[in-house]
C-alpha cells in the first residue's frame, strides 16, 4: 500500500504519469482502467490501432479474437502486424505487438472465428466489447451477444474513404438491431476486401474506438451512445448526429423481447444477412 489511497505501483505511476496528471482522469480513472477487461473482435484495420492504444493505456486484461493470417495486402492499413508475421495468425502477431509495448497487462489470445456457438463463452469474460470486424453477420451477432450478456459495445466501421462509429447497448441506449432491425440486401454490404479502403481511415476510426472503450472502462467522460460519428476522409468532414434511442419494437433488447442465450446460440446470422461470416480472397487485375 502506498498510503495515497490507491494501489498503483511506482512503476505504474511512472508509466501512466501523463494520465495521472489529468484532473478529470487521474488516479481513479487509471485504477478503473487497470481493473477492466476489454475484448477486441478482429485484429485487422480497426483492431490494429484499437489494440495498440488499449494495451498502451493500461487496460488490465485485453482479449483478441481473430482467425485470419497476416497477408501482404493487409499491411497498408493493419499497422499492428509486421512483415515477419506474414502467413502467421493475426492474433499471435497482434498479441506480440501489444506485449512489446506493455508487458505489465494481461493479453489473451482467442485464435478462433467468433461464432454464435462460442461467442457467449468468450464475450462473457470481458467487461466490454470492441467490434472491429468486417462483415454484417458478425455485427448482428456481436450486438445480440452484448445484449444477452448486458455488455456495452463500441462499434466502428470503415470502407473506402468513409468511417462510422457509435456505442451500442450502453446505459439503456440502443442496440445494433434498434437501428437496423432488417439486414440490408447483401449486395449493399461493401467490404474492404472488395471495395478498397484508404488505410488510415480505419486508423482514425480504430483510435476513436479505443477512446470510447477507455472512457467506458475508466468511467470518465460521455460515451458516444445515442449519437453516431460519420467521417468523410476525402472532404475532411465529420458529423456527429443524434440517433434514435432503444426501440420499443426491438426483437432483441426491448423489454418485451425475450431473446435468450439459447435462441442466440441457435440463430443463423449468415442466413439472416445472406452473407458469410468470413471473407473471400480478392482478385485484382491491373
Amino acid at each position, binding site marked *: 500500500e502506498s498510503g495515497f489511497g490507491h494501489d498503483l505501483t511506482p512503476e505504474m505511476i511512472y508509466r501512466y504519469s501523463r494520465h495521472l496528471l489529468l484532473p478529470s482522469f487521474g488516479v481513479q480513472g487509471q485504477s478503473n482502467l487497470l481493473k477492466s477487461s476489454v475484448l477486441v473482435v478482429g485484429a485487422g484495420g480497426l483492431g490494429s490501432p484499437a489494440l495498440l492504444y488499449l494495451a498502451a493505456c493500461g487496460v488490465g486484461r485485453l482479449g483478441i479474437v481473430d482467425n485470419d493470417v497476416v497477408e501482404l495486402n493487409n499491411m497498408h492499413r493493419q499497422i499492428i502486424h509486421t512483415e515477419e508475421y506474414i502467413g502467421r495468425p493475426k492474433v499471435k502477431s497482434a498479441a506480440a505487438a501489444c506485449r512489446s509495448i506493455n508487458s505489465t497487462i494481461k493479453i489473451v489470445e482467442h485464435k478462433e472465428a467468433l461464432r454464435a456457438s462460442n461467442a457467449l463463452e468468450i464475450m462473457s469474460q470481458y467487461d466490454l466489447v470492441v467490434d472491429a470486424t*468486417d462483415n454484417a453477420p458478425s455485427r448482428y451477432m456481436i450486438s445480440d451477444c452484448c445484449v444477452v450478456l448486458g455488455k456495452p459495445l463500441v462499434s466502428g466501421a470503415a470502407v473506402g474513404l468513409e468511417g462510422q462509429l457509435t456505442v451500442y447497448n450502453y446505459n439503456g441506449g440502443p442496440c445494433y438491431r434498434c437501428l437496423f432491425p432488417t439486414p440490408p440486401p447483401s449486395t449493399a*454490404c461493401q467490404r*474492404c476486401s472488395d*471495395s478498397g479502403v484508404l488505410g488510415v481511415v480505419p486508423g482514425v476510426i480504430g483510435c476513436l474506438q479505443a477512446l470510447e472503450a477507455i472512457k467506458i472502462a475508466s468511467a470518465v467522460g460521455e460515451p458516444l451512445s445515442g449519437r*453516431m460519428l460519420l467521417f468523410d476522409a476525402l472532404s475532411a468532414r465529420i458529423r456527429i448526429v443524434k440517433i434514435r434511442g432503444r426501440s420499443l419494437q426491438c426483437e432483441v433488447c426491448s423489454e418485451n423481447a425475450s431473446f435468450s442465450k439459447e435462441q442466440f446460440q441457435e440463430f443463423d446470422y449468415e442466413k439472416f444477412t445472406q452473407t458469410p461470416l468470413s471473407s473471400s480472397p480478392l482478385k485484382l487485375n491491373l
Partner: protein
Amino acid sequence: MQLTLEFGGGLELLCDSVKIHKVSVEPQNGAEMLTMKDLLTWVRTNLIKERPEMFMKGDTVRPGVLVLVNDCDWELSGQLNTTLEDKDVVVFISTLHGG
C-alpha cells in the same frame, strides 16, 4: 424551398458519385408542407440514376440506410411524416460493415 441533400456510405454511387446536392423542391399537388415522403419520391425521380432498389424499398428507404434531418435521426422526427423547412439538410447514409 432550398434543401441540401447528402449521400454517403456508397449511396452517392447511385447519383453519379456526387455526395452533396443543393436542390430546390416544392410541396407536391398543392400541399402546404413538404414531407420526407414527398422528398423520397422526388429524390427517386430526380437524383437516383441507377439501381433504385439500392435506395428505396416500398415507399421508404431500404434497410441499412440511415436518414438524418439536420443531424438528427428521422425516427425522432416522425420518419416519412417529418415536415421539411427551407435550408434543411437531409443526409442519406448507408451503414458500413467493413474494417
